[in-house]
């Protein structure tokens, strides 16, 4: 029930909602996306660059290999100038701590600069969340925040692609943040957080 409500909120916020079994299925799903495929980029079987949040890539090193094997060029911005490494990267993947059914939001924790630039500078952002972390209400996210309160951190409830209505209240999608957001719910995540 929470998942249905979550889906409604996600779609109301102009994101795509997808349910997949696990990370492997996610990589296959993105590899099969014609928007990201060879037709569009016209370079044989090459797929675009994908940025992985450093915290995610470090927790699940197999993801780098998985995306690479699927033809993606993987960027993990953990160098001295992470922003330069992923400026305008077409695709990025982050893992959310939890999801909120009430608003269709995901809670992403991104403390290091490398993690932050991934969600800020990409054009299309894939937010991945485990099905069993969906909470009904915003208070569920408050619980997570309280558990982490007082420790340095940057946690964001994200709900859809960036948008503005500052000109004549006319809605425009895609301002400083991503233009497109996919919310991917993993129903039987294997490995994933357990490996972290």
């Amino acid at each position, binding site marked *: 029930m929470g998942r249905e409500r979550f889906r409604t*909120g996600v779609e*109301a*916020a102009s994101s795509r909602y997808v349910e997949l079994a696990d990370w492997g299925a996610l990589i296959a799903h993105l590899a099969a996306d014609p928007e990201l495929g060879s037709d569009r980029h016209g370079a044989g079987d090459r797929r675009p660059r994908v940025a992985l949040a450093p915290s995610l890539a470090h927790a699940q090193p197999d993801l780098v290999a998985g995306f690479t094997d699927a033809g993606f060029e993987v960027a993990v911005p953990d160098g001295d100038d992470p*922003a*330069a490494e992923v*400026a305008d990267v077409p695709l990025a993947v982050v893992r959310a701590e939890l999801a909120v059914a*009430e*608003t*269709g*939001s995901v809670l992403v924790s991104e*403390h*290091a*600069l490398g993690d*932050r*630039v991934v969600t*800020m500078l990409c054009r299309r952002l894939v937010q991945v969340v485990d099905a069993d972390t969906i909470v009904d*209400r*915003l*208070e569920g*996210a*408050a*619980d997570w*925040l*309280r558990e*982490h*309160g*007082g*420790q*340095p*951190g*940057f*946690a*964001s*409830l*994200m*709900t*859809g*692609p*960036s*948008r*503005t*209505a*500052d*000109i*004549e*209240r*006319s809605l*425009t999608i*895609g*301002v*400083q*943040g*991503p233009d497109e957001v996919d919310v991917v719910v993993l129903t039987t995540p294997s490995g994933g957080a357990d490996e972290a």
Partner: protein
Amino acid sequence: MRTFEERYRTALDDPDVRAGLTAFQRGWRESRDAAIAELEAAEGRSFDELRQELAAIKDDVIANGDRYLDQFTANAEAAGAEVTRVATPGEANEQITRICHDAGATLMVKGKSMVSEEIGLNHHLEAAGITPVETDLGEWILQLAGETPSHLVMPAIHKRKERIAELFERVLDREFPPDDIDRMVKAARTELRERFLASGVGLSGTNALVAEGGSVMLVCNEGNNRMSVALPPVHIVTAGIEKMVPTYADAMKQVRLLARSATAQPITVYTNFVTGPRPGQRQHILLLDNGRTAMAEDPDVAAALRCIRCGACANVCPPYGVVGGHAFGHVYTGAIGLVNTAYHHGIEAAAGPQSLCVSCGACATVCPTDIPLPMQILEVRSKVVDAGAPTPAGRATQLAIAAFGQRWLFDLGIRAAGVVTTPLRSDGVTRVPRWLAERPGVREHVGWRTPPALPVRPARDHLKKGKLDEPSRLAAQPLAGRTVQLFLQCLSDRVAPDIPIAAAKLLRAAGADVRLPRAQHCCGLPAFDAGEQDAARTMVRQTIATLEGVDDVVTPASSCLAMLEHEAPHLLRDDLDDLERAQQLAGRTYDLISYLTTGPGRLPAGALDNGDRTPVTVHRFCQSSTTLQRRDSVERFLRDVAGVEVVPLPEAEVCCGFGGSTSIRSPELSAGVLDRKLGCVDGTDVAILITDNPGCVLHLRGGIHASGRQVEVLHLAEYLARRLPGADATPGGASA
């Protein structure tokens, strides 16, 4: 900053302002109402319950500010932030400049920060050789245009897309078709991206400070705030000390109401909780007082510190829709600006815009923290008067109110005016001769609204014992054996006598013995409205003494009922005896519609159905909805009891623009609000407009006459009296 008068004139002269803001307000109202209705359904609780819960959280913080500030400070410092409390804008500017200099920064990217506007930060930085760049799209547009925000949430809402396209063409030197908003947005992205990456300091505002975790909550839709926080090596947070909430769960309650009230979204795209700096970054949190402690200590305005800066109060404010935020407020716009400006920028800064409030009460109905804005505005207005910041118009008002307080003087004056204007009187209006009407000083008052006819004899003369005809009798006699004291309302008595006369006929037709307390004068509303609280108290006490007794008191003026029910107890709150008398009077006082629908005079269905089926439409006196909590009772009464077809009036509950002294002190504004109302009337294609308050009747009648429209405006009493058995259905009685 330019004077209020300059800002007011500039806004009136810009046709974009009114057209754009009216459309904005209508669009917002519809989508916000839908978003709130959805929330109420999902939560199974009313908006009132939800906002009172949030208000209680904020009140706790206002009462225990230091405790939460200390808790927040300890937690934020544990997470690596440097927290500094600053008392004044000067101190805040100095601190921020110093931080920039210490970091060797010459470029600052700014997320939206109202506090930075409040302290005039940009000017200060520029003088110190630091370039601030606004990164919120609306704020950036205004920075390019050399303007300031006109709205808390939609800073550039006063600008039409054509003007923004021109601006972009000039600044960026390429083509921008006005309809291609997407192109403008993308240009902002490109232009600002390099600034984000190059700047040495990022500055953000604050939506809430979470005491239990030391987190700064920041909401945004564009993503600019996140980038201002994350990318530069130094992050400065500016926050008013009232931004505190005790817990994350409390913050979520704010989230639930904030975006819905601001932009009708369930939640903004980003709701960020920033706790300390990221690795390799420094974070400075500046907590600004600038009058906030003084507000917390002043019971008249303390609740204004609940404000979460959603802008809803501006979005329903009819005068805001005419002149926009630059005139209506200072840095903080809308109704909240009329209150907090006095504390953040001084009483002089708050003085001018006071004349723009029409006291319609709409702001309080949508405020997500339930701030009693209308009463607070009246309190600040009274402080403005007490501080003696008099404008010429203000002095004239003071004199007028002093004269008005003397019943005999007022009576004499209005009778004399009635005699003098006898040759000019026709169809219920005074036809001002052209040579006079075109003179400056007269023109702006009569050009758009023909003055009412001034009768020689007030209603009280017509209603003397022995002057009354044998009443026509209704079949239903709910008031048989009941005595009703009729409170005429000073305005109707002398300027619209047909209204109380009709009300008396109606009450007698329903069986009442109608009495007229001779000493009655004025309930004190105009004086209270003008900030003259002492004069208001004198009048309200006099009214209470006059109407003392056990009988029902009925008035055809709903505004007097609102005064006696709400403002009078507030004015007399320090005197328990007076307060009790005021409450007793309020308990037995009705306006006509409440008396006939929910009071002892309840009439059965069809009681006033005389077969006349001419359709009508209804303007609801604004305070009927906002203060007296009525919705469609006039419409339902007309349908059920009079059997008439009522064509719904769009924006029926929005103020007509009379606003007591507003229509005299700011006639252009009043004319603008009236114009919006009459545009809605035109849409109904109906020839009879009914309303429940005499002030609205005179205002609408004058505006309709001046514009040449063929719509008859009637007070409910006048309309119903025409439907009594044997009544003469032609207009004009005492005033003809």
